[in-house]
């Protein structure tokens, strides 16, 4: 197995186990590269990548841009706030216009689920999904699994609980697919109103008691409550949410084992986790950020090598 089975990274759903293995092995090499005095390699000097962000993002956008630049690709950035999208242009027209400037690869975040798949069928470029609505966020799931592998040695056989707003989370779905593909057990935990109906059909356990969930798991991935996606009230108050589903130091210390804490960011300190937990030794939140660049370099490198000259 020396190349990816796909030409686009639209979701973890489309990957197989060997693809993930190859991405991780390649990311290991890039992680070594980004710890050198000079962190840049010339591999992608003849590739141009467009970062299209139709939705706000800080770390994902920076992480992708850094990954692209460390591979020596040419990068153009676009965010919908300052574009013709506001003037009524369609997605295909926007992207076709950009591609006619000879762009080889598109990294796209979009509020609509399936936007990446749609685009991959209509334009001639390699597409990386950087988040499509509440659907998938594949590179986040890959870097989460990579960070678990780095901390605990292997993903296989590990128990991972995803805590919080599962309903509005693309990170949750991609993580469920990625973890299961690698042989981990997955549980979701949160208020009933924020857990999608029938999610147990994906083969995940459902728990509404945080203490029980944390006692079961090896790793807890804490998600942010996505207030901006909520049109109605899903729980009485933030204070009550924190009391039932927030992780603090006392709760962690009262468990009979030491679990690993993850968070995809951005953190609402004091809501889903307290500051002392976020900054503790059990937390690998900043490792996740560093690994994000290496994993994205691996994905871009492997997809770019499939673009024919």
């Amino acid at each position, binding site marked *: 197995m*020396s190349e990816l089975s796909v030409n686009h990274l639209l979701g973890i759903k489309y990957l197989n186990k060997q693809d993930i293995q190859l991405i991780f092995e390649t990311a290991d090499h890039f992680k070594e*590269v980004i710890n050198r005095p000079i962190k*840049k390699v*010339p591999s992608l000097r003849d590739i141009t990548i467009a970062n299209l962000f139709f939705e706000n993002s800080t770390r994902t956008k920076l992480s992708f841009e850094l990954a692209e630049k460390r591979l020596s690709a040419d990068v153009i950035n676009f965010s919908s706030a300052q574009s013709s999208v506001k003037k009524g242009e369609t997605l295909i027209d926007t992207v076709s216009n950009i591609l006619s400037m000879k762009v080889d690869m598109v990294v796209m975040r979009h509020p609509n689920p399936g936007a990446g798949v749609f685009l991959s069928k209509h334009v001639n470029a390699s597409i990386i999904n950087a988040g499509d609505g509440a659907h998938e966020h594949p590179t986040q799931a890959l870097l989460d699994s990579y960070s678990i592998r780095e901390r605990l040695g292997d993903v296989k056989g590990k128990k991972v609980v995803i805590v919080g707003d599962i309903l509005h989370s693309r990170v949750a779905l991609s993580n469920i697919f990625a973890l299961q593909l690698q042989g981990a057990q997955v549980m979701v935990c949160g208020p009933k109103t924020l857990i999608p109906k029938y999610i147990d059909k994906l083969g995940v356990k459902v728990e509404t008691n945080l203490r029980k969930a944390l006692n079961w798991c090896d790793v807890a991935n804490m998600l942010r409550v996505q207030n901006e996606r909520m049109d109605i009230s899903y729980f009485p108050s933030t204070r009550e949410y924190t009391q039932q589903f927030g992780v603090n130091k006392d709760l962690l210390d009262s468990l009979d084992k030491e679990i690993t804490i993850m968070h995809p960011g951005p953190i609402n300190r004091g809501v889903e986790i307290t500051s002392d937990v976020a900054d503790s030794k059990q937390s690998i939140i900043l490792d996740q950020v560093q690994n994000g660049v290496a994993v994205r370099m691996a994905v871009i490198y492997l997809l770019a090598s499939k673009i024919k000259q």
Partner: protein
Amino acid sequence: MSQKVLLNAKEVNIILHRLACQLIENHNDFSNTVLIGLQPRGVFLADRLAKILTEDYKVKNIKLGHLDITFYRDDFRRGEKTLQANTTKINFIVEDKNIVFVDDVLYTGRSIRAALTAIQSFGRPNEIELLTLIDRRFSRHLPIQPNYRGRQVDVINNEKVKVNWKEHDNEDSVYLIEK
């Protein structure tokens, strides 16, 4: 596919000892010298040379590294397959050091060109030399020549030189394979 023996185990051993002595002649106690084996196949030769220098010639503190050049190659997207990387292991500072690149076969010189670029990511060496077990004459695409060579051979383009190592391939030998 036919193959013929270019060097047997005894000949490889004699050549390795000569190369080791030549290195000592130029680098004395190796206090400011590092050996860098080029991935994938140059590392076997570098490891072996370091072993000979340490055990047979009592040179102390040989610094040995492995350098992977995959991301610096000039044929990315030009072949059918994805270029897969190997491990780089350089646990020392290369700034102002005398570097000896070690590779098994010198052919077009393109790998060495990539290695020259790659090593710059680790600092600015004082000088860089090249040691190669087999030097394929008249086949260079770039103006690159070895400082230390084991054996010079004339090989036509559809033939391949394969270097085997005891640690990896069960014997020390060099074959000329006709494709």
